[in-house]
């Protein structure tokens, strides 16, 4: 029986019923990776160790809740003794001596990390076109981008290679590729998942999360990924509920907010139609829609493009050719070591953001840009706080449209930055948000975004699961994928 497109829940059943052995599952996974190599979803494979682990599980079964489940790790999570590039030439030779907490958590639950997924360089991009290791194809179309930055992760799940992948979301990097590849992804509340071992892009916005085929699987994964970690002082010391507990509770009476300021009239008719149909479906499930106002929401993108580059310009300073990663050939002096190493090691988008970030933090501009952006960020957070007094969740399209063509936004960074228009606000406010497939336009999937209140992932997952058990958008698979 094929394992392609199976959910975690289904694979667990197959393993439990001995329909497939752990070793067979992993071997088949790698055979799917190979037959779909042109998707370019992976930078590094962990085949030998994965097969060893699977064999061990066959010999000595484990009680871990995710025992034997193959998972693809985004290549910005440090994995001990396994190359971690962050999609960059700069780290093309970097083999971490330690593993990220979230990787450890998943592996402790029995997951097998089969490889490292392709991504936009240092998670900066919305199309996976900035990776040093080549573009990732969207399984729904050879010339379509998979979104980014967790493009490899979303593509690997969409092609049915793995049931789950880890991702990170700084401005939409889980939700946007999930939307463009027709899969489900959630970014939990900032601080739910430890950032220890996650290579930082913008520390105050970065949050890890799962990409999977269903909301139910996302809940199962979140149960293992979340933890309070003393190694990360921004990690939340809050109770972690069983996120699967309320999945099947009905949602009648759920109050869903529609953001007045998200002007959908500027979107393509088809996109609006898909969104309206989802609203109707939620109404049929007993939800109630309330228009809410987030007065400062229009400032989200500019605010984000001050805060994120500022933090990235500092976070990426450690890549200087001195201690790890790439170093340029025979520099004449220290200055040349820095300039050549960083010029050769970083791609254009990373350089652009380092420049923006250095500029907004520089003397004389700090108050006008960085400080102002932090103030606006606070206002946006306040907007959400008051909105959540009258609604349970907030709903919008995840993206302005379905997947776009490779190269179509390459020349215009602003157009690319606007890709994250709907997703950025949740990062600025630190709120949980997810994307679920809710339609197909011209044979291209598109997603619906649900934003929840602080720590209220359970309610998001419940709303998503209720949608998925009564629709089949999440079950659609692309054509032409090799088995």
């Amino acid at each position: 029986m094929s394992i392609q497109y199976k959910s975690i829940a289904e694979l667990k059943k197959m393993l439990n019923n001995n329909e497939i052995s752990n070793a067979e599952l992993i071997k088949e996974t790698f055979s799917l990776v190979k037959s779909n190599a042109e998707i370019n979803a992976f930078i590094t494979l962990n085949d030998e160790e994965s097969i060893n682990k699977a064999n061990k599980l066959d010999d000595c079964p484990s009680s871990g809740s995710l025992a034997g489940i193959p998972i693809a790790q985004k290549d910005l999570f440090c994995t001990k003794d396994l190359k971690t590039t962050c999609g960059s030439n700069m780290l093309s030779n970097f083999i971490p001596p330690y593993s990220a907490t979230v990787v450890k958590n998943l592996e402790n639950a029995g997951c097998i990390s089969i490889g490292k997924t392709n991504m936009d360089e240092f998670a900066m991009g919305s199309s996976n076109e900035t990776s040093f290791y080549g573009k990732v194809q969207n399984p729904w179309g050879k010339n379509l981008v998979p979104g980014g930055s967790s493009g490899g992760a979303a593509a690997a799940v969409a092609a049915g290679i793995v049931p789950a992948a880890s991702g990170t979301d700084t401005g939409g990097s889980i939700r946007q590729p999930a939307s463009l590849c027709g899969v489900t992804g959630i970014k939990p509340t900032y601080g739910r998942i430890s950032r220890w071992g996650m290579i930082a892009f913008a520390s105050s916005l970065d949050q890890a999360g799962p990409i999977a085929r269903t909301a139910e699987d996302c809940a199962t994964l979140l149960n293992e990924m979340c933890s309070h970690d003393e190694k990360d002082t921004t990690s939340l010391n809050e109770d972690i509920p069983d996120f699967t507990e309320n999945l099947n509770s009905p949602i009648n009476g759920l109050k869903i907010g529609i953001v007045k300021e998200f002007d959908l009239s500027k979107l393509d008719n088809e996109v609006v139609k898909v969104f309206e149909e989802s609203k109707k479906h939620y109404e049929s499930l007993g939800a109630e829609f309330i228009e809410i106002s987030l007065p400062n929401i229009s400032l989200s993108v500019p605010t984000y493009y001050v805060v994120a580059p500022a933090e990235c310009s500092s976070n990426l300073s450690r890549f200087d050719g001195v201690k790890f990663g790439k170093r340029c050939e025979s520099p004449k002096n220290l200055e040349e070591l820095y300039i050549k190493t960083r010029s050769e090691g970083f791609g254009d988008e990373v350089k652009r953001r380092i420049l923006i970030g250095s500029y907004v933090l520089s003397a004389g501009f700090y108050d006008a840009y960085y400080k102002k952006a932090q103030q606006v960020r606070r206002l946006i957070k306040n907007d959400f706080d008051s909105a959540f007094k009258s609604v349970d969740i907030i709903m919008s399209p995840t993206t302005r449209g379905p997947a776009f063509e490779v190269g179509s936004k390459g020349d215009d960074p602003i157009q690319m930055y606007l890709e994250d228009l709907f997703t950025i606000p949740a990062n600025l406010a630190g709120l949980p948000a997810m994307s679920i497939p809710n339609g197909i336009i011209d044979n291209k999937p598109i997603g619906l975004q649900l934003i929840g209140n602080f720590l209220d992932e359970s309610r998001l997952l419940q709303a998503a699961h209720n949608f998925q058990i009564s629709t089949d958008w999440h079950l659609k698979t692309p054509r032409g994928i090799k088995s």
Partner: protein
Amino acid sequence: MSWETVIGLEIHVQLSTDSKLFSGGSTSFGAEPNTHVDLIDLGLPGVLPVANRGAFHKAIRFGLATNAKINQTSTFDRKNYFYPDLPKGYQITQMALPIVGKGSIKIEVDGEEKIINITRAHLEEDAGKSIHDLFDGETGVDLNRAGTPLLEIVSEPEIANAREAVAYFKAIRQIVTFLDICDGNMAQGSMRCDVNVSVKKSDDIELGTRAEIKNINSFKFIEKAINFEIDRQIRILESGDSVVQETRLYDSVKNETRSMRSKEEANDYRYFPCPDLLPVVISDKELKEIKDNLPELPDEKEKRYVEELNLDLSEAKIIASSKTMASMFEGACAKTNDSKLVANWLVGDISALLNKENIDIDESNLTSDNFAKLIERISDKTISGKIAKSVLEEIWETGNDVDQIIESKGLVQIQDESLLETVAQTVIDNNPSQVDAFKGGKDKLFGFFVGQVMKETQGKANPQSVNKILKRLLS
């Protein structure tokens, strides 16, 4: 019109925590290069800092001891610049909201007291070390020191000359060693300072343009560097030029300061709040606990020594000024009642020995137990003061027990007056001409007779008894 100097000091105090400010890496000095470096110190991708609360407690002790405002919520910022011994490309420091706010400290120069105000004291991580002379054409980097907690203490520009600057530095050193927050070891770089110097005409209100002299680590060099810099700036101003705002280095071999970089070349550090660290909040309870456990400071000790132990002010000052001296004093006093005698010996003979060898009292063989015993043996007249000196010298050499030294060398004082009288009579009988001269009015010869008796008894005679007996026999 005379020139007036304005000086401000930034003193970096290495806090004596076991682990680093943001990692579990060890802070001990002198290890093989790059052996006290963990993932965080190395700034590996993906690592995160966790603030060491112990360093905060030490900083708070300093704040409380200098009557400073303690900011119970303080934050960290990043100071961004590239240098090979700065692993992350930024230093984590406290720019906006330091743990210690405004405070002050008393200094004394030539018996004159002066209060120097302290602007702030903040925590930051130290950088590693670049090693330029070990590798041909290349620079080595040792990150052992990277991440070591520093308390940077910034004074107001209220210091008027080099001697005040040294007195201020010494006062800070005294406080941090008394508080047990720093070992005060300047040779190992546990305390270093940057000095800001400017000069102006006495009646000018505005400060002159300043130069900053970086990284000086001895009292002597602070004084010399400041004096050089004052002369240099006055010379420039008197020739009609103006001083350039810049960072300078002091060259102790040539005794001069040299330009390192001008203001134009200075880094724009692009400070911003460190997003990896939440504000550190110190609770009222925590603060009170630190306050309650604050040790007695030099001023308080001095006062207590004078008022309760009847020491002279000058003695009290000397003993209270050094932590090791004060603890030797207090240790000995706990075991003997004669605190005045303890003080006399400490300030007198013991200080002389320490000065001669240029060591600190805790580096000597003297323990407070043995010292107390020595004082006891003087008080109970087992040995004379003079013999005690030789016992002290023996302790200094060997560290042996006082009683053991007295016994093995037969140094017990002769108290037996009939025995002493026999010796004294013999001395008188053997020196008739001196007796005649003494009786003829040469009073000074009395000492000769005392000396002779002492010589005959190998110094063991009780001097008071000898005096008494000789006076009687010679009258």
